[in-house]
């Protein structure tokens, strides 16, 4: 159960980041978002 909650939290944050990536107009802010997104996707897929 706790793993499902964890996945849901990470999924929510990942979707938020993707949403922000498309909404943001400043290039460097978009790059920063993409860098953070890498870690969230790896965490979402439990790759370590």
């Amino acid at each position: 159960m706790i793993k499902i909650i964890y996945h849901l939290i990470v999924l929510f944050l990942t979707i938020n980041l993707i949403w922000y990536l498309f909404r943001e107009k400043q290039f460097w802010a978009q790059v920063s978002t993409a860098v953070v997104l890498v870690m969230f996707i790896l965490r979402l897929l439990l790759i370590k």
Partner: protein
Amino acid sequence: MKEKINRHHVIAFCLLGLTGALCWLTGLQFLGMHHNDIFYPSPGLSKQTKLSFYLPHLADSPGDTEVFCFKGKEEGGNLLILGGTHPNEPAGFITAVLLLENITVSRGKVFILPQANLSGFTHDDPFEGNPQRFSIETPGGKRWFRFGSRLTNPIHQWPDPTLFINAAGQALSGAEVRNLNRSYPGKKNGHLTEKIAYAITELIKKEGIDLSIDLHEAAPEYPVVNAMVFHENSAELAAVASMELQMEGIDIRLEASPPSLRGLSHREWGDHTHSMAILLETANVSHGRLKGKPSEALIVEGKDRNYEKASKLGMLFVPYSKEGIPLKERVGRHLATVEALLRGLREIDQNLTIDINNFPSAQMVTERGIGFYLHPPK
């Protein structure tokens, strides 16, 4: 209605693609650590099994590590050698590999677990910048070995509690729940690391192990280094072995296992089984807090300028010069100590004699290198 695609949307799509590519590349690297190392046991191997043989719960789990058994024709003592309790302490792991790829046993039984915490080999410590692997040159090419983490992979055991109270009743910080050498005697239905500890304790009991040796490494600034930590049931053996080593010119510190420090191999094996319990430590700069840039060379050659300076300032507990403390010297030290313990065991009780042939001697390993004693890669 046709929507206008803005410039920042195009950039977002491109960055999303780049993110996917980065995830793919880094993911492959991370997942590469889940591929097991290959060992080539010597022809003297009698039996190869898994740790789940001693605790069926462990079957097919990330903690189900290999157990190599070498049995002599004559009855004698039984020995357990554990490497890879902490996968970021490579001398213990490589010493075990060197033994299993070379020895034959004519009297007694020898059990070797080169990767006691197999899960710890599947990841490395965050923020340390350590290489995922290191290589050793053999006459037939390079052999690669994983350099893992001190702790079980959180993918395999999660979440950590705030406070970990181990099976022996010691309260520890939460992350120690994934430290095999804080989890003894283990729990049959506990977390993965506790199950591994339980299975190892069961192995010692079921196989009637007389002497158990846990091979480790520590930072040169840590007081318990180049040391033999012994349970009180092994005090005589440790003293005899220490004298033998000193006669060979190898300085070793004797440390009695503190009775109040619970959950460690040298304490719980001695308390919960009939085995004598010993833990060995060598000095590894790649393990230390003063080290410079982590690298494969740092692990294998053990040279670091910061440690040279620290040594000059008298901050270390071992001698350290610009030659460093290479892996072959650390492995040699472990081998010499294991040999001295076996001689000591024979002196204490003839019935516990364990005769090992083709034992790679410390001197030869230091002179010829580790690779000379490793099977070339296939």
